[in-house]
């Protein structure tokens, strides 16, 4: 239950602007307003006092920009500023029962994956402020003007992990209905409620009229008390003056009354006069919120997904039985995971399952990394898939939105360790109907286990709508007689317990031919029995077709619009693409024709030895492209298109070599990274693609990589060559530091460096072994080292 912060029977009056008031009092541009708590405490106290006299029952401290990052060169600590600020507020509130809110604004840096700020660092900075505020005696914490939902999450967690104070969270939206980072109002409401915020609101950016529809959406997306603090209209672009006077403001604010908002106030451009008018117009107002019926929904910051029958969870990011995915996880090849994520999203997945379970890797670290990276390229909500609590927590902390946890089962130890995580991080949970004794054969027993899981989850404070049950698909080849009980159990869970249902559909066909056929048929039946969330391969056209048909029959896809959009241009069956090989492999690579290169390679491999094909066709073709690039007759995109085409051919070659029973041995490995602080990845990625082409195994550590991580990877993979990239003058020192640490570790590896601002002289100065001016040059270095 949310902690009570606002009184129920009256309208709670917040305060108005601090920043614009301080400017009127003489604050200069570039000056840190929060330091006025120390340098001009009487001015700050006067502003608070004026609001209290105007009717504010809640005042927020002058600490909007107070955090270790923003104060770093100020000469003051967080503790000092917060103490001074709370003292100003307390002095103003003396003799009244005004509540004091600890004001916390955005940290001023973008979190990963959008920027380089690490989630735990953000949490830490928030915790310092919260601890100082709690110590100084504030009544609640007020996170405001937030634009990144992940930062809101860091703030809420920081409060909960530091003290027992209530937490109010407020974001700021553009007229588009999204924040600068793309966060939806609905995602904010869903996520903040799931994370245990005590009230939510919208402030700043716009006036009362523009914010109104957004507050309506916020009220509909959660059952928390809602507050609003708009600006005094919109600012004039030249004079920066806001365009609504106090009386107009208060009258516009009355439109919020039918929504049952719990508290009102103002933001930029407002002053005590606005609050006085608000008080007048809200006299006698009793907040009455319409209770929202519980809805099963998950979300990312950019997208909310209601759990309806036939909501597709993509299964492809999972190493079980997938050789390539295993290899990618072992080598830390995040790009492969991302490719899988984007392909599934394009094929129609609505949620992506993420399972990175391999015994030989640091699974928790990989889960964290995967969640960040996948959220950097797709808007889809994620389902974090592991049985280990530490792995799940690593992903849950950095997940931006409301995810699904897959999974718990009916074993009490499992329930005890994982359900509290789901509660804390606001996740929906999948419960598998099995326990220490295994999967019961009969539907009745499985439903009994589902009931146990449901009771435990409710006990842990997880709402019923967030509990999904997986009745477990059994394989028809091994447990044929139990398959039908799965379907019966789905129906019973749905009808008797009223819970949403999940099934890993593809399990049914293990060990049988033409698996897609069995999977599709089973999917159709499961949907008819009440399956909500099939975990399946969305790249399988027949299965997605089954889903789209189901949505037509179920009236989800009104007027069959989605169906027509997907299949409108198609006759009954698509003609099979003719396998042509009219372009030679050499030409296909030269011209950068990916599909043709793949089929030409397959064709050629029927007669040619794989190794000969590489040495006599592929490498010469690549060398020719490289030569043209150096001469300047072909340019970068063409070079890379040829690389992509060659890659398709190499994939075919690799298959052929493996069929011969050999392992395609690659030379290397070479570790590549963009150095700490640098987020420009493109040069390093070009090098990676080209090296890969020439048969070198490349371990890509990504961007913003700390020196220690480079050293560790060089050691772990026993790399003879390390490639470092830096694009900015500000990140060159990080490159020098990385090289110094590599040399100090005494690994004996060579280092090649490149990047826009780098020069051969500078490379020499920081003791790099090679300066490479472009990707082709990096291949020459690799040849020198590995042959």
């Amino acid at each position, binding site marked *: 239950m949310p902690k009570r912060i606002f009184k129920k029977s009256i309208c709670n009056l917040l305060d108005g602007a601090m920043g614009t008031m301080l400017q009127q009092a003489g604050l200069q541009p*570039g000056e840190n307003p929060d330091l006025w708590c120390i340098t001009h405490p009487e001015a700050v106290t006067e502003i608070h006092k004026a609001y209290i006299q105007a009717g504010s029952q809640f005042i927020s401290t002058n600490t909007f920009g107070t955090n270790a990052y923003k104060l770093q060169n100020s000469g003051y600590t967080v503790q000092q500023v917060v103490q001074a600020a709370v003292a100003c507020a307390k002095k103003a509130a003396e003799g009244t029962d005004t509540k004091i809110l600890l004001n916390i604004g*955005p940290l001023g840096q973008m979190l990963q994956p959008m920027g380089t700020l690490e989630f735990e660092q953000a949490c830490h900075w928030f915790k310092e402020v919260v601890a100082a505020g709690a110590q100084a005696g504030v009544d609640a914490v007020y996170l405001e003007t937030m634009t990144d939902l992940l930062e809101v999450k860091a703030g809420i967690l920081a409060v909960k992990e530091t003290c027992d104070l209530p937490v109010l969270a407020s974001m700021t939206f553009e007229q588009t209905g999204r924040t600068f980072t793309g966060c939806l109002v609905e995602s904010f409401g869903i996520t903040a409620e799931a994370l245990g915020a005590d009230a939510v609101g919208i402030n700043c950016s716009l006036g009362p009229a523009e914010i109104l529809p957004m507050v309506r959406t916020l009220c509909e997306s959660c059952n928390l008390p809602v507050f609003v603090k708009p600006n005094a209209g919109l600012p004039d*672009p030249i004079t920066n003056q806001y365009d609504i006077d106090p009386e107009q403001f208060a009258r516009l604010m009355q439109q919020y009354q039918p929504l049952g908002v719990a508290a009102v106030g103002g933001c930029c451009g407002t002053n005590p006069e606005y609050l006085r008018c608000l008080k007048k117009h809200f006299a006698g107002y009793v907040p009455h919120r319409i209770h929202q019926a519980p809805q099963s929904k998950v979300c990312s910051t950019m997208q909310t997904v209601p759990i309806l029958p036939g909501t597709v969870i993509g299964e492809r990011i999972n190493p079980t039985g997938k050789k390539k995915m295993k290899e990618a996880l072992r080598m830390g090849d995040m790009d492969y995971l991302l490719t899988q994520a984007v392909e599934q999203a394009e094929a129609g997945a609505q949620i992506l399952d993420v399972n990175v379970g391999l015994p030989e890797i640091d699974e928790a670290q990989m889960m964290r990394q995967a969640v960040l990276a996948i959220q950097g390229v797709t808007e889809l909500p994620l389902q974090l898939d592991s049985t280990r609590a530490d792995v799940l927590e690593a992903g849950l902390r950095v997940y931006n939105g409301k995810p699904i946890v897959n999974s718990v089962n009916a074993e009490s130890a499992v329930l005890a360790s994982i359900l509290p995580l789901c509660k804390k991080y606001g996740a929906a949970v999948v419960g598998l109907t099995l326990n220490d004794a295994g999967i019961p054969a009969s539907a009745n027993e499985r439903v009994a286990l589902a009931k146990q899981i449901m009771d435990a989850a409710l006990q842990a404070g997880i709402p019923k709508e967030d509990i999904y049950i997986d009745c477990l698909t059994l394989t028809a080849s091994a447990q044929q007689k139990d398959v039908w009980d799965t379907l019966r159990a789905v129906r019973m869970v749905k009808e008797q317990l009223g819970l949403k249902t999940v099934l890993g559909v593809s399990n049914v066909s293990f060990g049988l031919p033409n698996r897609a056929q069995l999977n599709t048929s089973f999917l159709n039946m499961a949907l008819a029995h009440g399956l909500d969330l099939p975990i399946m391969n969305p790249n399988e056209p027949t299965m997605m077709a089954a889903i789209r048909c189901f949505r037509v029959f179920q009236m989800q896809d009104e007027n069959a619009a989605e169906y027509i959009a997907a299949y409108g241009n198609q006759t009954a069956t698509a003609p099979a693409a003719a396998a042509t090989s009219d372009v030679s492999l050499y030409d296909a690579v030269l011209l950068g024709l990916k599909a043709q290169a793949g089929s030409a390679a397959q064709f050629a491999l029927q007669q040619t030895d794989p190794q000969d094909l590489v040495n006599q066709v592929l490498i010469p073709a690549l060398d020719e492209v490289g030569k043209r690039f150096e001469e300047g007759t072909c*340019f970068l*995109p063409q070079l890379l298109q040829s690389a992509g085409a060659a890659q398709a051919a190499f994939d075919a070659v690799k298959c052929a070599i493996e069929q011969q029973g050999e392992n395609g041995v690659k030379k290397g490995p070479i570790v590549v990274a963009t150095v700490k602080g640098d987020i420009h990845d493109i040069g390093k990625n*070009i090098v990676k*693609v080209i090296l890969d082409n020439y048969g070198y195994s490349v371990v890509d550590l990504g961007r913003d990589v700390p020196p220690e991580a480079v050293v560790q990877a060089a050691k772990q993979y026993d790399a003879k060559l390390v490639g470092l990239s830096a694009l*900015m*003058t500000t990140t060159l020192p990080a490159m020098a530091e990385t090289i110094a640490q590599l040399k100090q570790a005494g690994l004996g590896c060579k280092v090649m460096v490149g990047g826009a601002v780098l020069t051969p002289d500078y490379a020499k100065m920081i003791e790099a072994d090679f300066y490479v001016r472009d990707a082709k040059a990096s291949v020459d270095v690799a040849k020198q080292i590995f042959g």
Partner: protein
Amino acid sequence: MIRTLPQELEQAEVLRYLGATGKPMPNSVQALLQKAKEELWQAASPRAATKLLPLEQIKPLLQGKDILLHLQGCDSGVLLGVTLGLGVDTLLRRALAMDMAYAVVLDAAASVLVEQIADELEQQIRQSLSQQNRFMTGRFSPGYGDWPISVQPQFVQYLDAFKQAGLCTTSSCLLTPSKSVTALCGVANHPVKGRQAGCTTCALRDTCTKRKEGKCCAQENF
């Protein structure tokens, strides 16, 4: 401040970024360029922040010789920031994972687009100032010449760019979203040209494609 997208992408400029000026463009690259344009126009949410301040008030920002030369004869400065928004960064990350050939074209196209939007904003400000008989120099950005990029965080703070445009810096002074531009223009009561820094102190002097073509950005537009 919400900005609109231009009608067209300056394709010749994109090709220059790609090192392809004067070279024949194969159809396959033309197709990538077309796709980049379509996706950029979908994903970009251009925003801008501007602030006119007396030079007196922004003194802490004015480090090095080049920016002072640029502002000679000016009494005020227009700080401006333009960004394509985080949607474009997502698009770029996706392209980097899926298709490098497309990624380099998209990256170059986005760089050109943000400059186009900055150009347009600059022209608009110049026009509105000229109505008050005020004159403005061209843009000069942190990191250019000997103006250290380390002023970027403070620059963004003076500009209030986070609130106005969602623009901020990383701890290594890079702008996020990544396709963003900040710049300062000098303002005076008489016609001013400003002075670009030239190649001598430029961090990119060894790799600049313009310089390779024997041109200098200091010679253009001024």
